């Protein structure tokens, strides 16, 4: 491209002087945006809409679908285009704030890789077909299945809620099937099970702002845990006024860990023992222990816990003293605790601390019963992924619908999902993008983006009163004919139960009807149905009555086994989630690829975090490529040497290593999920995501690790510094 004998560094330094930049022009890609007269068109309205003023934006309320937290958004629309998203101040989840993934919703919406036409597999290849043909094929295939084996039809989705979830349920009911598999890699399924058993509620309310001390065992509540934007605002309250104390124990420093007053690098898989060690120290200082847990607590004196966890007995006693001193406190367990074969037991040990310290009822309170059970969220987990892979392998399914999840990418290779899918004769994928799962499909149905669609959503974590959040289109669909998810579901239902659903022209009228048929108490002060509907859309949400109950404290027996060393695979693999690429679903968003990782500052890549002592033992430094091998596969990534990771651990972030997810995602980095062992958490059947042992070997290859804030001058084959011709410069800049 460039024929000048300049080093890139010199080239960029020259770029700093704009006139010099202009003289170098002609060696860059054609400029698509220009100030030059007569190059761009400015097209006026034929007849403007009444309220449209060009250049003046109008804001509409909707719901963010970039993760399952259910934040409310306001979208700015100008001249019919959605341009900017912000948080909805009325939403109790995010109170006007919005994280980087939410902000990037516009890049999901305008992504050039979005599918615009349905695709059908013909002679082994996916080819574009018309919408008429797509619906006809669907009717035939599902109709045939309904006649003979409706029970062998399955839906495999990400977390869904609201009326979309209700319609998926209705579709399966119409077919006589019970197979709704719900999958999320980033979940708190084990924690929910513990909450349910101990407290009697799967997801109670956490009053972070009321706590004087928060002790987090790997719960990255500022980054990836449950409802990060909500907890970030609560965290700000927790830290203001009388500054709350934050203690974090985890094998790899998370964003939350980086904010801690005391950060403890606990040996991977031993968090439960650390919690019991702290409980023991508390017991010694006079705090009572529930009877059922007494043997477990008695077995882990701080000295013994120190031996196992690598955290000194003094530290353990110090944390116990801090907990006693700062009451009420809040103790949280996150994915590193739960994603072990004894994750349930370990998370129970963490919950035991809350019970002992009297936090239940103070910082952990009942969230009450959500009054519309059919709209409740179906929360994702990995147990359903395992079950689905097994069902596929056993040839138990004839038709499978996929929506809102990409299991071919997220499933560990050891589950054999990709091979199992061959056994499902008809696979339908509803998606906005071509992805690894769509590549295996028999029929691909493009769906509207979340900024073009209708919907209702119920967040799994409800911070205040329960709310149903509403999603409305911010603009017309970019690809005519592409249905919304709800519209696609209605269409499927009409094929089965024409009588029941024939009255609804579209999902819009279905939702209007749903709001109109709300119980009388929601129509206070003489609102007509139309007024209620408009008021709800304007606000973006509907508050429901969820009477708070009271929490129990049923602590059961806790049994933890020793974590054995593995001579062949000495390191614990930590597939760490990031606020950004998330579980890989956002790898096709350039903004999020470009946004540096909060800890390592790496962009557009994968990396392996190694403790300096481990790196020295392996003889590697930053940028050296290592091969990480488990019993189930191997990946190659560059090393990032970092003290915030336990010497026995190697952390590789989630999200990269895509093979079929569009131009921005493909061919970057590696996917650590692929080499996970199929080990299962004993009580809940969840995948033990953090339970895989690996070894790392140097490959002898060294590459630069691209990080923000370094003297890095690579343009990465893109136009980071834009150039224009000298002629054009003179014309537009008037020199």
């Amino acid at each position: 491209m460039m024929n000048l004998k300049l080093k890139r560094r010199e080239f960029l330094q020259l770029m700093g002087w704009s006139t010099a930049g202009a003289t170098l022009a002609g060696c860059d890609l054609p400029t698509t945006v220009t100030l030059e007269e007569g190059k761009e068109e400015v097209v006026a309205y034929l007849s403007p809409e009444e309220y449209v003023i060009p250049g003046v934006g109008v804001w509409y309320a909707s719901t963010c679908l970039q993760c399952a937290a259910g934040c409310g958004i306001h979208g700015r629309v100008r001249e019919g285009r959605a341009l900017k998203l912000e948080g909805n101040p009325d939403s109790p989840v995010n109170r006007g704030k919005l994280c980087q993934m939410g902000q990037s919703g516009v890049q999901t919406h305008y992504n050039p890789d979005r599918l615009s036409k349905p695709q059908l597999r013909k002679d082994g290849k996916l080819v574009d077909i018309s919408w008429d043909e797509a619906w006809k094929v669907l009717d035939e295939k599902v109709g045939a299945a309904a006649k003979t084996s409706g029970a062998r039809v399955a839906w495999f989705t990400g977390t869904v809620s609201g009326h979309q979830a209700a319609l998926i349920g209705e579709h399966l009911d119409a077919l006589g099937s019970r197979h709704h598999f719900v999958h999320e890699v980033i979940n708190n399924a084990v924690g929910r099970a513990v909450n349910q058993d101990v407290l009697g509620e799967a997801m109670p309310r956490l009053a972070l702002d009321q706590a004087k001390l928060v002790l987090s065992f790997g719960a990255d509540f500022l980054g990836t845990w449950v409802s990060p934007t909500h907890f970030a605002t609560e965290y700000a309250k927790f830290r203001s006024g009388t500054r709350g104390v934050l203690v974090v124990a985890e094998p790899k420093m998370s964003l939350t860990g980086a904010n801690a007053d005391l950060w403890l690098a606990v040996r991977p898989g031993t968090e439960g023992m650390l919690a019991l060690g702290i409980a023991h120290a508390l017991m010694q200082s006079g705090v009572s222990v529930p009877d059922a847990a007494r043997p477990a607590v008695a077995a882990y004196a701080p000295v013994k816990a120190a031996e196992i966890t690598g955290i000194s007995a003094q530290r353990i006693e110090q944390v116990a003293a801090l907990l006693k001193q700062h009451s009420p406190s809040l103790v949280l367990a996150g994915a590193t605790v739960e994603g072990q074969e004894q994750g349930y037991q370990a998370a129970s040990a963490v919950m035991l601390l809350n019970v002992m310290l009297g936090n239940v009822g103070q910082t952990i309170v009942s969230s009450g019963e959500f009054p519309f059970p059919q709209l409740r969220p179906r929360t994702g987990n990995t147990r359903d992924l395992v079950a689905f892979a097994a069902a596929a392998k056993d040839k138990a399914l004839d038709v499978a619908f996929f929506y809102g999840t990409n299991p071919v990418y997220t499933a560990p290779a050891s589950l054999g999902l990709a091979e199992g899918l061959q056994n499902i004769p008809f696979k339908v994928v509803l998606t906005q993008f071509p992805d690894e799962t769509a590549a295996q499909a028999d029929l691909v149905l493009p769906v509207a983006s979340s900024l073009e669609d209708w919907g209702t959503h119920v967040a799994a974590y409800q911070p205040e009163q329960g709310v149903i959040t509403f999603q409305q289109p911010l603009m017309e669909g970019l690809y005519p004919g592409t249905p919304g998810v709800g519209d696609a579901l209605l269409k499927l239902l009409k094929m089965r139960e024409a009588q029941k659903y024939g009255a609804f022209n579209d999902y819009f009228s279905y939702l209007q009807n749903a709001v109109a048929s709300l119980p009388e108490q929601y129509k206070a002060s003489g609102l007509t149905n139309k007024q209620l509907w408009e008021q709800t859309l304007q606000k973006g949400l509907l508050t429901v009555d969820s009477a708070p109950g009271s929490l129990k404290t049923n602590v059961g027996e806790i049994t933890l086994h020793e974590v054995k060393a593995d001579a062949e695979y000495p390191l614990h693999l930590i597939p760490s989630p990031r606020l950004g690429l998330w579980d890989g679903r956002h790898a096709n968003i350039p903004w999020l690829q470009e946004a540096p990782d909060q800890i390592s500052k790496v962009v557009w890549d994968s990396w392996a975090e190694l403790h300096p002592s481990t790196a020295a033992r392996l003889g590697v430094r930053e940028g050296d490529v290592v091969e990480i091998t488990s019993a189930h596969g191997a990946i190659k990534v560059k090393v990032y040497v970092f003290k915030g990771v336990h010497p026995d651990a190697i952390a590789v972030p989630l999200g990269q290593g895509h093979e079929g997810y569009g131009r921005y995602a493909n061919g970057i980095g590696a996917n650590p999920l692929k080499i996970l062992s199929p080990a299962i958490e004993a009580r809940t059947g969840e995948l033990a995501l953090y339970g895989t042992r690996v070894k790392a070997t140097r490959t002898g290859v060294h590459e630069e690790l691209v990080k923000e804030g370094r003297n890095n001058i690579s343009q990465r084959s893109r136009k980071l510094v834009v150039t224009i011709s000298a002629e054009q410069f003179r014309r537009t800049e008037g020199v």
Partner: protein
Amino acid sequence: MRWIQLDRAKREPARQGCGALLVALALVWAMPASADTAAPASIKYPVAPEGAHAGKDVAQPIEFPHDIHTAVNKINCLYCHTYARRSKVAGIPPTSKCMGCHSVIATDKPRIKQLTEYWEKKQPVPWKKVHDVPDFVHFTHEKHLKKFIFDNDELVQNLSVDTVAPVCAACHGDLRTMTVAKKIKPMTMGWCVSCHEKNGGPGDCWACHK
């Protein structure tokens, strides 16, 4: 599809529609044909920054005669570029506004026939952009018009195309002497800043780069 507007959105009453035709006719006929083209000397105008730009002639799909509309027929700039007082952009008038007059006026002229053809085919006219600033510059017509036109009492009392045009001319040149627009001012940052200095505009970076 029906969208519900948030209450925080601005909602300006529509000031166009079937009344536009009458207003336009009134404007055309009410103006004395021999009006003085000079503004009253007592009106204060911005001190225009120095500097010129040798803009190129931009061929438009229809050679729109600014001169006939303004110098001859005395139609106020803001009658067509009605968004300028409410928005960051001045806006190209919608075709419906053109047709408000030209469904009855000068319908036999070739350029009007061209316009009518677009209108009947329901196609907007693909005008070429002449004036632009980069995306990282937040220029707003609204604020500049407020300061130099609507907060200028003497000008407001003598509001006409000939009192308004000198304000527009500071950046766009005197359109009363042009057919289609041509860029004759540099519109560079230095040029903007020199005007801000001379006329007491904000000097902080945030005013334009936000």
